[in-house]
């Protein structure tokens, strides 16, 4: 049989590893001889033979050539093992999988990014893409929330976004520490303060499961149409091929049909959020 198994992995070389917080590390990975060619919002299945596979969002923008970045929180088997790797080590890569953010549709519109916790990881891919192609998009607002300042990722990049005049950036923490000078409170508290033109605004929301319900409520309060609210659903996934059933919600397989969906679509599927 010479048809290719969909389970075949490509070898990825780790170019660098950076400790981001106590829980997260960033890995820069290259597929020798090729680009990943992903769209923002897509993910890859990262594999270590003998340990397993895990879906991880690509965090770097497609505009970055030659390598891509993953940000990994250590929670279990595979993620724990990844954290032990160093530059020069190999990982297996399958993908990219899924439907990323609909960049073509977003073009020409205003964008409101809402990221909670690790949600910034996949969003960063889109944000950097937008910044890299800034003239193609309207007004850009970025809202970021996390539990405490120590968990905040991409400090330098965030500072860069903050500096920019063509991007409005705001962030908050659930619980401050003595050094924190910024907002304190849930991410939902930042939304009312954003001025937006609901007709031409697309809201892109990524964060932990419990966040969606509350953020979406606030966005609907702002009259953003349901089909202009984009969210990413991260479910348990095994195959990435729309078969194993773990990520199925309603009729959709998050891995193939998602992870990015409009709220309009998600609302119609029972049990999605």
């Amino acid at each position, binding site marked *: 049989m010479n048809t290719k198994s969909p389970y075949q992995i490509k070898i990825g070389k780790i170019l660098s590893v950076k400790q981001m917080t106590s829980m997260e590390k960033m890995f820069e990975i290259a597929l020798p001889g090729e680009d990943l060619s992903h769209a923002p919002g897509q993910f890859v299945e990262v594999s270590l033979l003998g*340990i397993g596979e895990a879906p991880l969002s690509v965090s770097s923008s497609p505009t970055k050539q030659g390598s891509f970045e993953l940000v990994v929180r250590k929670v279990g088997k595979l993620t724990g*093992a990844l954290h032990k790797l160093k530059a020069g080590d190999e990982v297996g890569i399958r993908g990219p999988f899924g439907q990323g953010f609909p960049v073509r549709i977003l073009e020409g519109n205003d964008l409101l990014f809402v990221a909670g916790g690790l949600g910034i990881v996949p969003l960063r891919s889109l944000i950097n893409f937008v910044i890299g192609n800034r003239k193609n998009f309207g007004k850009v607002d970025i809202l970021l929330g996390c539990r405490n300042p120590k968990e905040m990722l991409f400090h330098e990049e965030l500072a860069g976004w903050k500096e920019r005049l063509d991007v409005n950036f705001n962030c908050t923490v659930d619980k401050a520490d003595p050094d924190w000078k910024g907002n304190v409170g849930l991410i939902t508290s930042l939304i009312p303060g954003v001025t937006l033109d609901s007709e031409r605004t697309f809201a892109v929301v990524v964060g932990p499961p419990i966040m969606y319900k509350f953020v979406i409520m606030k966005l609907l309060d702002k009259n953003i149409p349901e089909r202009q609210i984009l969210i990413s659903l991260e479910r348990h996934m095994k195959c990435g091929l729309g078969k194993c059933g773990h990520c199925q919600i309603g009729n959709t397989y998050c891995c193939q049909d998602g992870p990015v969906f409009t709220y309009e679509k998600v609302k119609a599927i029972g049990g999605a959020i």
Partner: protein
Amino acid sequence: MNKPKVSFFDFACCEGCQLQIANMGELLLDVLGAIDVVEFREVMSEKWVGEFDVVFVEGSITTPQAIEHIKRLRARTKTLVAYGSCAAIGGVNGMKNNYKLEDIRKSVYGKDANFFPTVETKAIHQVVKVDYVIPGCPVYLPEVVAVLKAFLAGLPRPVPDNAVCVECKLNENICLYERGVACLGPITRAGCNSWCINHGNICYGCRGLVSNPNTKGAKDILEKYSLSVDLIANKMNMYNKCGENDNRE
């Protein structure tokens, strides 16, 4: 590479789980190629005074001395494995907790009862922190090997949290409920390849209950089959009596 220093200790138990090691056959030599067994009272006279990388503990804690001993072992080892049902969930020794300690002591030892200090039976994790759990009465060798490999690779290895029925069906057994017999498969953790049912017996729950068991549902099932509810209570505390002291999430 330095081979990890491994030892075996036993508390109140039948030592059958240690014996399972000898049943590995020549595979044991491969295992011994990967680890360095430095103390194993049942088959070795050697003793080790230093630190251990991993200690396998068989048996439950039933005496005040054992409590002290297990604490000392915990302090001497990097990794601790609760090995077998007695260690993992209290196992059959837990049945003792069905009785008042004084009563059971007297019933067995009569006037000499005072020679036998005993405390409520406890699983190892109810006394000290445990890193790996291998339940089973006795342990299922493929699982022992799987945990050993996880340990060697530095990986976590939780006990499966689905029901024995899953494996039972994969093995295409006739369900015992069809025979009108109560089986603990639906609420017991898989991982033994439905060992007992494959051989015509029921599951006695020796691997411990799943994390979120529908015990009420299980009792209703008995009623549907006109089986007495005492029956399942009786079976459930055969191995899982100690578990009553865990606060389940």
